């Protein structure tokens, strides 16, 4: 039986399509298997080209796009290590340096970059010096941006507890033609070493007010809630101590404190649940897993959770 030319062509087409499909599946499956091999990620741990000058020349003038790519790489690098709980952020500072030298006006790289670099691991890279260098470079390149002075002051206050330098940074930012009304107040508060809770609250409130990014706003709200918890717990524990001094015993419940006239009603945490009084006189947050960044009101030996740092696109 002889096959017609059309039948032969059709069979060839079917065979080629089948081979294409099977090869594609094979290639994907093989690559997936390679990805699952336990490998020391030497490739990921290198920067390939660490000189911003060389990169600038290689970019053929398209430095803006290259800076965006490096900034995204820095965010992914930090996000991945933060998510894995790794304390090794050795490439973070060079990535940010390359990013900002390629595009000195890329403000998010300074603002977020410093916040990635400064805090101690696992929350950050534990490199406050690098964070300061980054922020100072940012100010030198963008001297008219009050937010950079604000971030510098924030850094001095939260990470380095250097009130004089924080006051100086806020005062310089307050002198700019376009600035936040909170800047002179913050400068004054720093100079006076005024109540730490109030100052921190004002800092986070300024952060909340000065951004449209939903992630940053949520982060600021988280910190404001945590500040409220820390302040509530501090005050309640002082009340417990006063009660103990007066009655020579610990209160058995919040109702004891209320009956003694120390508090009016059972205080609630930001999630609307009442604070818990433990048998040893400590104050605890009932659902501590749902409030980020708190440093007080936690069960012994427990650390407050931090939110995931990989951003979502609906952050508007």
């Amino acid at each position, binding site marked *: 039986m002889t096959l017609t030319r059309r039948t032969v062509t059709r069979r060839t087409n079917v065979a080629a399509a089948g081979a294409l499909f099977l090869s594609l599946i094979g290639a994907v499956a093989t690559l997936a298997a390679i990805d699952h091999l336990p490998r020391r990620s030497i490739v990921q741990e290198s920067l390939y080209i660490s000189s911003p000058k060389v990169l600038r020349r290689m970019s053929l003038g*398209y430095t803006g796009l290259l800076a*965006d790519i490096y*900034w995204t790489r820095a965010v992914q690098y930090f996000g991945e290590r933060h998510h894995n709980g790794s304390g090794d952020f050795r490439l973070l500072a060079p990535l940010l340096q390359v990013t900002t030298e390629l595009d000195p006006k890329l403000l998010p790289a300074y603002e977020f970059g410093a916040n990635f670099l400064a805090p101690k691991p696992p929350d950050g890279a534990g490199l406050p010096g690098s964070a300061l260098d980054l922020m100072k470079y940012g100010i030198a390149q963008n001297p008219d941006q009050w937010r950079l002075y604000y971030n510098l002051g924030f850094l001095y206050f939260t990470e380095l507890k250097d009130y004089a330098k924080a006051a100086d940074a806020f005062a310089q930012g307050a002198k700019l033609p376009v600035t936040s009304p909170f800047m002179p107040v913050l400068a004054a508060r720093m100079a006076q070493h005024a109540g730490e809770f109030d100052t921190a609250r004002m800092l986070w409130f300024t952060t909340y007010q000065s951004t449209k990014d939903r992630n940053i706003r949520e982060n600021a709200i988280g910190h404001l809630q945590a500040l409220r918890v820390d302040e509530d717990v501090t005050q309640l524990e002082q009340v417990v101590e006063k009660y103990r001094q007066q009655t020579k015993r610990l209160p058995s419940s919040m109702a004891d404190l209320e009956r003694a006239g120390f508090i009016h009603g059972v205080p609630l945490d930001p999630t609307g649940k009442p604070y818990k009084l433990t048998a040893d006189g400590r104050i605890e947050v009932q659902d501590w897993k749902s409030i980020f960044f708190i440093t007080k009101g936690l069960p012994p030996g427990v650390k407050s959770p931090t939110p995931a740092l990989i951003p979502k696109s609906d952050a508007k």
Partner: protein
Amino acid sequence: MSVGRMDARIGYIAFNTFREAVRDRVLYNLIAFALLLSGAAILVGEISIDIERLVVVNLGLTAVSIFGVLIAIFIGIGLVSKEIEKRTLYTVLSRPVRRWEFVVGKFFGLTGTLVVNTLFMAIGVFFALLYTAHRFEKMDVWVLVALYFIVLQFFIVCALALFFSSFSTPLMSAVFTFALFIIGNMADDLHGFARITHGAGGWLATAIAYLVPNFSALNVISQVAHGDPVGGRLIVYNTLYALFYSAMAISGAVLIFQRRNLK
């Protein structure tokens, strides 16, 4: 031959060059561009922080520039050689068409193709901007200026491709044009080098710095991505520079093509 007929002849060659480019599916690059830009606009918010608009402008304008330069080079180098290879040049020149009219017509045809291509890409960039920011802002006007500078860049690259193709093989023309594009993007470094070099070397460096095309001044992508304005004087000077440089390269191409033995 009257001036009016000369215009018509150049226009006819330009239109045919445009039609041929469209027939060669050059505008298919718009599909790749649209996919690239829409993909980036959607994905970047997922993997980065606070740079959605920057990425749309930087990636959009960089893609417009790179796609256009590649089209300018790869079409430009074949404009003359293809006509010789297919022997259609002899048919054209056997009619009352002068050689210089043929070169100038080819130049306008290719730049016209690139202007149309850029127009579609610009619409894509503005759609992506609207998608990410939900509205247009005043500073988006500067994106138009950056697009205009990119078109000026295409004028120079097209003229250079045509110049090299008037005496060299397509492969070598592509190499020469691309090399000049790279060198032209480092023009600021060349000028800096010329300033610090003295004596004969200094003169030579200065001569080279002024002879190679300066693409640095035509690249304001990063600037407009941040919403920074572009000075009026730079717009005027860049326009004049691109016109002079293109005219210089086209004149060179005409001079060589006039003397070329086409038998």
